[in-house]
Every structure is written in structure tokens, then in C-alpha cells.
């Protein structure tokens, strides 16, 4: 698996240069951190890659790292799969709260449509180029993005609950 990471990493480095920030092998997943501006180009390249054709988007999710430096506070994780050669890879992009736009990959994968809506719904990450970026699981006028780490599990605006009575 280590050499697969090297192999794909080298091809990506040759093609995109410093848009590939880092590469590593995490347990069984070759993982690449890439610049967010290039994510769609990289996915397009991997879609018709010579070695592996990553034509299946397994999952897409957001992550909030409140303790990271400001530029890397939010992350979007993409997991791609080459079903023919049975190879999986993970791509990550980082973004900051002030510039929370990430290019949408819906033009390449129809799967990404609802997954990006879900990520927007819960993390507030704006996917530019998405055909219909509205909240999906929560109500449309919910004023905040609940999966961000600053929001507690329970509704903080409730005044009828006394935490001290529940050992919290």
C-alpha cells in the first residue's frame, strides 16, 4: 500500500506541483491533502487517471478543527474508490471560516449533491457551483450550523433546564 501512495503521489506532484500539500498512508488509506482551489481539477484528473480510475465517490464529509490554525479550521474529506482495481484514496482540503468556499464536485459526481448539502447544513461550508445549496436534514431557517464544535449537544438557548441537577 505504501508504494501505491508513492506512485499516485508522484503522478499528482508532477501534474499539480505545490497544489499537493502532503501525502501519507493512514492505516490502509493513501491520503492526500490538497489545495482547495484545485480539488475539482484533481478529481477530474483522477477520474481518467492512467493507473487507477477513481470514478466512484464513496463519501464526502466535513470536519471542524477549532484548535487548528485559522487557515485550516474546516476540512472537507473526500473518499474515492476505483472499483475495478479495488483501490481507495482519501483527499482532504482545508479552509478557514472567513473564506469557507470550496469548489463543488457535483459536476463530476451526482452523489456529491446531497452530501455537499449535508456538509453545508451541518458545517456551513459553501460549495461554489452547487446547483441547489440549501439545508437538507435540518429546517431551512435554522440560524446556525450544529456540527461545529462550539455548539453543545443540547440546545443552549433553553432556560428551563438546570444542568446542575443532571451532574453536568
Amino acid at each position: 500500500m505504501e508504494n501505491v501512495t508513492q506512485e499516485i503521489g508522484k503522478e499528482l506532484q508532477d501534474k499539480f506541483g505545490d497544489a499537493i500539500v502532503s501525502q501519507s498512508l493512514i492505516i490502509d488509506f493513501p491520503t492526500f491533502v490538497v489545495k482547495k482551489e484545485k480539488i475539482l481539477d484533481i478529481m477530474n484528473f483522477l477520474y481518467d487517471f492512467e493507473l487507477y480510475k477513481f470514478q466512484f465517490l464513496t463519501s464526502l464529509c466535513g470536519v471542524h478543527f477549532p484548535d487548528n490554525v485559522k487557515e485550516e479550521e474546516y476540512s472537507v474529506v473526500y473518499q474515492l474508490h476505483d472499483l475495478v482495481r479495488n483501490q481507495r484514496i482519501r483527499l482532504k482540503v482545508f479552509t478557514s471560516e472567513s473564506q469557507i468556499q470550496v469548489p463543488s464536485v457535483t459536476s463530476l459526481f451526482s452523489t456529491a449533491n446531497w452530501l455537499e448539502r449535508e456538509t453545508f447544513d451541518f458545517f456551513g461550508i459553501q460549495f461554489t457551483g452547487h446547483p441547489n445549496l440549501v439545508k437538507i436534514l435540518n429546517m431551512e431557517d435554522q440560524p446556525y450550523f450544529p456540527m461545529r464544535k462550539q455548539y453543545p449537544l443540547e440546545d443552549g438557548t433553553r432556560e428551563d433546564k438546570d444542568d446542575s441537577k443532571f451532574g453536568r
Partner: protein
Amino acid sequence: MNTTDLEKKRAEIEKQGYSILNLGPTHPATHGIFQNILTMDGDIIIDAVPTVGYIHRAFEKLAERRAYYQITTITDRMNYCSSPINNFGWHMTMEKLLGIEVPKRAQYLRVILMELARIADHLICNSVIGVDTGALSGFLYVFQEREKVYEIYEEICGARLTTNLGRIGGLERDFPKKAWDKIHAFIESLPKALDEFETLLSRNRIFMDRTIGAGPISAERALNYGFTGPNLRAAGVDYDVRVATPYSSYEDFDFQIPVGVNGDTYDRFMVRQEEMHQSLSIIKQAIAKLPEGPIHADVPDIYLPPKEEVYNNMEALIYQFKIVMGESNVPAGEVYHSVEGGNGELGFYLISDGGRTPFRLSLRRPCFIYYQAYTEMIKGAMLSDAILTLSSLNVIAGELDA
């Protein structure tokens, strides 16, 4: 969308001569809480706008506030038709992160339970397809068999629907004799029930006329939409997680992956039907090859010690206390593990920062991913076909909304 926008849209649609039909959220034919606002031209569907999230329970947020062993109960509320698969999927994710090797016997017992769950899941889906075409009796016959699967769960863990089966590191207890008796009886009776069910439906002229060509999707579109599981295989792609990346000793068993051709309702029905036969064969092989040995890995800081030891042994008491308080040491790292759930690739993407709860747990829920193709699949179809398509996709509301 606010009310004035909705009114404007409605007027626009009605000006074109179409009518609007609100299907759901609690329509008896949708078997769950699904709402679709359909634009209809007579009986033909022009467009559909699905609304999801009616039973959203914030599982991913809940998981960030729970100790690792407490997340099992969250998973079995996703696809509640095959909860053991979800439970074990989560346990295997944790085992992958912790680097635990589970003994063979536990792996085989898990396989037996997961295949029983798959049979129960497919039985519901296929019999409901029958009901939606107007054939109620098949449903009644096979529900007897599903009940038997639930009784087996009951013997093993005490619960029926939300099983909370197994522990991180293995199973909580071996199967009792009564469970084995019921499993053997089930293996005997299921083929007969399936035969009876297939005689009723699979070559039934009316059933075939209703389902062939209803809600088709091509292999290319299905892959682009991220389909997995029986729905993808019905379109002709032989992707199965059990074979692509074997887990829990699936490589030890010999089984076929049925595939369809057209990806329509009939193919989905037939693929599920054949998968039940294959699952039965896997269960038989697992029973025949079942090795002796322990049912859990030797990981005292993760796996709860037996109760007698807790009361009589200092160390066991300490471990019991630490585990229950969620103070097990879990390394920082990230891991993705997927299992072949009843509906497709059920994935767990877990980021741990070494704390007592996950830093982030993202659930790849197959239903959520493929339900977005529903609009495309029913455009131009009749309303009655849309109902059939929904039931043959086997969209489970709990998994859709998580």
C-alpha cells in the same frame, strides 16, 4: 423557500396545465416518513421534490458526546431492519483503529448473525414490493420467517429490533443451545418459504408486468449516484464489500454475487431473492466450519470482564469501572471501515483525537446516498410505479435521516 415563493411556483406549474400532488410524509404506501411533492400530468410524474430529515436524530453529533462503547446503540437505529450488521460494522471499525484481532469463532458467529440480518432485511423489502403490487399473501407467508430471525436474536441478546449485539473485541456471549436449535430449524424452513414466495411472485404474469421496466437505472448512472448493494448489483455491477475488501472472514466462504441487467424493480427483486439463498449458504458453511475457541479477543481494557470476576477480583473491577466510565485508551488516528449492509456499503469514518469520545464520526449511509437518484428514476413514470420504485430501493427512513 418562503410562502410567497411557493405560491408563485405553484401558480407557474398550474399555468402549464400540471397538477401538484403531495405524496407523504406519512402515506401508507411509502412505508416510512418520506415526502415527495410531485408535479403530475394526469398520472405521469413530471418532476419530484423530495424532502428528507423528518426523523433526523443528530447521530453524528450524539456520537461526539458518547464513549465509544455507547455508540453501538446509535448504529442499530439507522437501518433497523438489519441492525446486527450496523452493530458489527461499528465494532469492526473500532477494532481496526485499536488493532484488535478477533478470534475466528467470534468472526464466524458474527457472519452467521449478519447473514441472518441480511435475510430479514431482504425479506421485508421483497415482500413489501409484493404488497405494493397488490399481492398481500406473500408478505404474510415470509413474515413468519422474519419472526424466526428475530426470535434467534432474542435468544442471543434479548432484543429483537434494536439489538445492540456484540462488543468491541468480540461477542458478549456464545450462542445458547436454544439459539442453535432455532437457527437449525430456520435453515430447514426458509428454503420452503422462499420457494413458496417465488412461486407466488417471480414468474407471476401480473407481477412481472408491473415490475419489469419500472424505475430503471443504468449502471453508469447508478455508479455516478454512488449506488451500492443490491440496487447497484441489479444494474449489473458486481460490487460487493464482502468480496472486494473481505472483513470478518468472509474470504473463507464460497458464495455467488447475483447481478441484474436492467436495474429495474424486477431485477432488484430478483437480486435480493438470490442473495437470500446465498446468505443461507454462507450460514450453512459457517456452521459447518465453526471453530472452537474464545468468543472475544484478549483485551481487558476494552472488553468488559465477566460479572463473577468483577465481584471477586480487584483488577477486573478496575477494568469494569474504567470501561463503563469511558476511560479506555483509544489511540489518536483516523480510520474508515465499511461493511456490506442490507442496502449497500455502510461506512464508518472515524477521527479520534485520543479522547474518550470520537472527535468526528461520519456515517456513510447507503440509503441517503442513493435516495437522491429517486427523482431521476421516477420522472416520466406513473404514480403507481413511483411507489414500487421506492419500496424496491428499500429506503429505510432511519438510515436516510440518521
